[in-house]
């Protein structure tokens, strides 16, 4: 039965779509892999027809009940799979089938047209992208694993009866209860259907499946395999039917699964080898789905008493992942001062050999950040990571709206007095004609004024949408699992939890560089006037190459340990902090600041015309807390000193630095010491998350074709490092050859 992964792997890789066939990366769920047994259910088209008819017939019911019934319809009718090449169940219909019925229609009903118009204005101009956030939920994994689906259902009944007994339930509570019950009952039926289908199978894994599904149908998981199967079921149904992205697997996959692992070891239910195999099949599901954002999960960290959560299972989980050589799921390693060094070293060795899917998160800073948002010390230690590097409290709340704001755009707005040439609209206030900006202070104040006005304007617009989110998409699966929401029978997104809002900065490094060039060339050296610089920008630098080079050569840039530039970065971050520090969202909760660009460094870059730092129209801006590509010419230590000049304790939701290293800088035994030294020093200086890029020969070829993207790439030659761009092509060629020969 076991030791089958190698032969099964190609099959799983084709589970959700056929490898090699073209796809649109933003909607992987619109595809199918290998065919399922047709006798087990309906086609996607039939499901859509059924949903259409059903939703018509229940139009007068409450939203939670309508959604619950649609939810149940899909689970009752989708095709299923119990495959001999897999340990994790298959569910055919996954193209978010409820969206047209239970979200889009209700969205229009709930949205306020003026608010949407404002948000559209900012989105089209590239000032900011802000919308309700359906994409950052982490369920109450403790409840799910302790109770199982039937236990969650029972708790819903018990809590509702309690509410009724203590003075009665409101209509809203009753509808939420009904919706959740319909959904959870359908999950139990779905598992029963899978179980019975497993009984019809005769392949080697069928019995294992059947035992697991029977237990999950009847109660809580009893062993490691069942715990993983439950997490898989919740994830798959949550993302695709409940329609809220599930942004972590367990409260730390190692922590959540460890009690089961320990029990299995004691009882002899499974061997370590068998558990390794289950884990490998589990990881392969996410690799096969292949969402571009990568499925997050985390390992390590601390419990409520401050004890490390690293266990024997943590090492196993990391090792199994390493051996699969996949990059999805992505893993956050929570590093506290008491995290065993050999565990951190195990992860760093993976980085050393080219793994780029690990991010190292500073557990002490997570605690600090969450406490500054009001968490208790214990809750802040025993916290969660959701998504890329965002922190939260277990069963505490979700980010109800997210805004990705383009810091660089505010520089452009100064040049155009609030007008945006890209979208051809006046998008911000008038801060004065260029000749009125007599000093750099005038210019900088105008820059901040645009940030202040636009931030307030789009947050106000978003606040108008925020109250509607739960009614647009009742979070039945998510709220049903939540201990807190179940108690009050309130949707998590309707104040069932404490839902803050977030604002994320993108292009910070580039904005600082642009400001420094304005000061240096216009106000200090007086090489050009603001108007002349504007003309150069309007012409996308064409005909102004010499001026562009002067801009590129400006001494003060963020990311190279330049005190002036770094302090401007810190000051801009503090300005954003002040704007949101005492602000409340529509749920009467606070805002968190994040320096995390997501794809904003590309998408905002496309909508930002040429900027004073020498960047051309449409080019990328800086990502996360990192400098503009090429600005960090002084190496990684200077880069870290720059980034940690920012007061990271006020960046309470997430802060990540990307560090690029060449394999020769970190090879060998001492190379891990180097990585550790970089990571630990960054964290001691208050850095939050850090990820490494260790580049290989392919990358060097790209560096040769696009040198402007790799200004800081250093190549270790022998007794010295050299900047890649300082080598002429002939020498680069030899280096590439050498890098290739080392790979052999």
């Amino acid at each position: 039965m076991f030791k089958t992964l190698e032969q099964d792997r190609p099959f799983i890789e084709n589970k959700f779509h056929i490898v090699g066939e073209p796809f649109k990366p933003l909607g992987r769920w619109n595809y199918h892999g290998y065919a399922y047994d047709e006798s087990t259910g309906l086609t996607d088209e039939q499901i859509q027809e059924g949903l259409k008819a059903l939703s018509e017939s229940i139009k007068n019911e409450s939203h939670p009940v309508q959604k619950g019934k649609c939810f149940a319809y899909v689970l009752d009718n989708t095709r299923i799979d119990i495959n001999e090449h897999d340990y994790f169940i298959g569910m055919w219909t996954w193209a978010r089938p409820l969206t047209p019925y239970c979200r889009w229609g209700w969205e229009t009903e709930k949205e306020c047209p003026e608010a949407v118009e404002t948000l559209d204005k900012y989105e089209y101009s590239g000032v900011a992208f802000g919308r309700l956030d359906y994409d950052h939920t982490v369920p109450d994994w403790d409840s799910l694993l302790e109770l199982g689906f039937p236990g969650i259902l029972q708790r819903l009944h018990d809590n509702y009866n309690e509410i009724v007994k203590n003075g009665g339930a409101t209509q809203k509570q009753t509808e939420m209860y009904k919706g959740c019950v319909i959904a959870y009952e359908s999950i139990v039926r779905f598992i029963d259907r899978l179980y019975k289908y497993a009984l019809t199978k005769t392949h080697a894994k069928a019995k294992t499946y059947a035992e697991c599904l029977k237990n999950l149908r009847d109660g809580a998981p009893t062993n490691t395999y069942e715990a993983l199967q439950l997490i898989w079921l919740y994830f798959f149904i949550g993302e695709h039917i409940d329609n809220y992205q599930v942004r972590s697997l367990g409260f730390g996959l190692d922590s959540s699964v460890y009690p089961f692992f320990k029990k299995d070891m004691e009882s002899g239910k499974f061997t370590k080898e068998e558990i390794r195999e289950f884990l490998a099949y589990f990881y392969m599901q996410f690799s096969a789905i292949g969402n571009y954002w990568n499925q997050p999960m985390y390992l390590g960290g601390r419990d409520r008493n401050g004890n490390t959560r690293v266990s024997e299972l943590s090492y196993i989980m990391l090792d199994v992942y390493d051996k699969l050589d996949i990059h999805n799921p992505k893993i956050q390693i929570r590093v506290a001062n008491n995290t065993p060094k050999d565990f951190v070293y195990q992860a760093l060795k993976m980085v050393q050999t080219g793994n780029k899917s690990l991010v190292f998160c500073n557990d002490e800073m997570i605690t600090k950040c969450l406490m500054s948002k009001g968490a208790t010390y214990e809750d802040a230690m025993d916290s969660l990571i959701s998504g890329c590097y965002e922190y939260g409290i277990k069963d505490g709340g979700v980010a109800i709206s997210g805004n990705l704001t383009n810091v660089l755009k505010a520089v452009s707005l100064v040049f155009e007095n609030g007008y945006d040439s890209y979208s051809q609209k006046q998008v911000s206030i008038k801060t004065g004609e260029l000749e009125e900006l007599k000093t750099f202070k005038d210019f900088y104040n105008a820059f901040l004024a645009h940030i202040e006005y636009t931030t307030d304007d789009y947050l106000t617009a978003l606040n108008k949408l925020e109250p509607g989110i739960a009614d647009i998409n009742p979070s039945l699966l998510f709220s049903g699992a939540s201990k807190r929401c179940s108690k009050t029978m309130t949707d998590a997104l309707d104040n069932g939890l404490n839902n803050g809002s977030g604002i994320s900065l993108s292009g910070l490094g580039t904005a600082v560089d642009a400001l420094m060039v304005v000061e240096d060339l216009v106000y200090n050296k007086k090489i050009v006037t603001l108007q002349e610089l504007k003309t150069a920008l309007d012409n996308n630098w064409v005909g102004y190459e010499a001026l562009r080079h002067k801009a590129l050569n400006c001494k003060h840039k963020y990311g190279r340990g330049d005190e002036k530039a770094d302090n401007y970065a810190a000051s801009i971050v503090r300005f954003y902090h002040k704007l949101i520090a005492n602000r409340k969202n529509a749920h009467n909760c606070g805002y968190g600041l994040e320096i995390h660009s997501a794809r904003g460094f590309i998408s905002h870059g496309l909508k930002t015309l040429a900027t004073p730092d020498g960047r051309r129209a449409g080019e990328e801006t800086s990502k996360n807390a990192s400098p503009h590509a090429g600005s960090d010419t002084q190496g990684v230590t200077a880069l870290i000193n720059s980034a940690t000049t920012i007061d990271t304790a006020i960046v309470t939701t997430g802060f990540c630095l990307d560090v690029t290293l060449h394999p020769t800088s970190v090879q060998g035994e001492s190379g891990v010491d180097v990585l550790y030294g970089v990571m630990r020093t960054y964290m001691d200086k208050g850095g939050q998350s850090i990820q490494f890029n260790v580049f290989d020969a392919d990358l060097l070829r790209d560096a040769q074709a696009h040198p402007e993207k790799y200004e800081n790439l250093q190549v270790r030659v022998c007794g010295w490092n050299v900047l890649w761009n300082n080598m002429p092509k002939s020498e680069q060629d030899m280096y590439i050859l050498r890098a290739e020969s080392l790979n052999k």
Partner: protein
Amino acid sequence: MKAKIFEIKRFAVHDGDGIRTTVFLKGCPLKCVWCHNPEGLTAKTELAYYAHKCVNCAECLKVCPTGAHFIENGIHKFDRSKCTACGKCVSECLGGALTLYGKDYTVGELLPLLIADKDFYAHSNGGVTISGGECLLYADFCLELLKELKKSGINTAVDTCGFIPKTALEKVLPYTDTFLYDIKAYDESVHIDCTGYSNKQILENLKFLDESGAKIEIRVPYVPNFNDNQIDKIGKFLAKLKNITKVRVLPYHNYAGSKYDSLGLKNTLPLTVPTKQEIDAAIKKLKEYGLNAM
């Protein structure tokens, strides 16, 4: 007291253990044919001109007091004989094609730059390495600098070719945690062919250092057709010493050609580079002598 520095390299990870900052002092008594740091050979300040980066903007012409930079048929030309290495052109160069190698520093000026990354040293068992050129040509300066570094609790390494008076080593010995010591050949004739000078003093100095109990990491550049026949003899010699912690075989490469061109120097770099098999064999051979070779 000042020394001429041609580079301060932060995040240096191959000049001793951990994350280090390496400071390169200018001037060297040897003339190794394979030298990959030709900008460290002379003790004078020099202007390097990297022609492949020049964008022919002519900004340098405007500030050059001697007319060393000029334009001929739209192409920038540089007459080194007229250059006084004043460095005025460097900050004007739009393409970043000009670099001035050699700037005088006092210990007081240098120290803050070397201490900037102290936290990184602490977490990686790193520190500061003084290298060159040949740093011990400035033994008194090194002594003063090393004393200051030790006062700040920083691990120190001195990277030397050993072709210096014994007194220079004696001076720095009490303040140096590790010596990175080059052995290029055992046979004197081979050493003369490769570097222009005898190695008698180098081997004597190494014995002295070893006797004195210093921690020594040996570095052997491996250059085919030049010193590749010396490995066995080097191994035999080193095996008799007591304090050699590591022997690192450094595969020769010929990537430094552009530096020779930029400085107007004759490129002496050998053409043949070693294969991985040759390097592995050399390491194996050294290990046979009980050495911690890598």
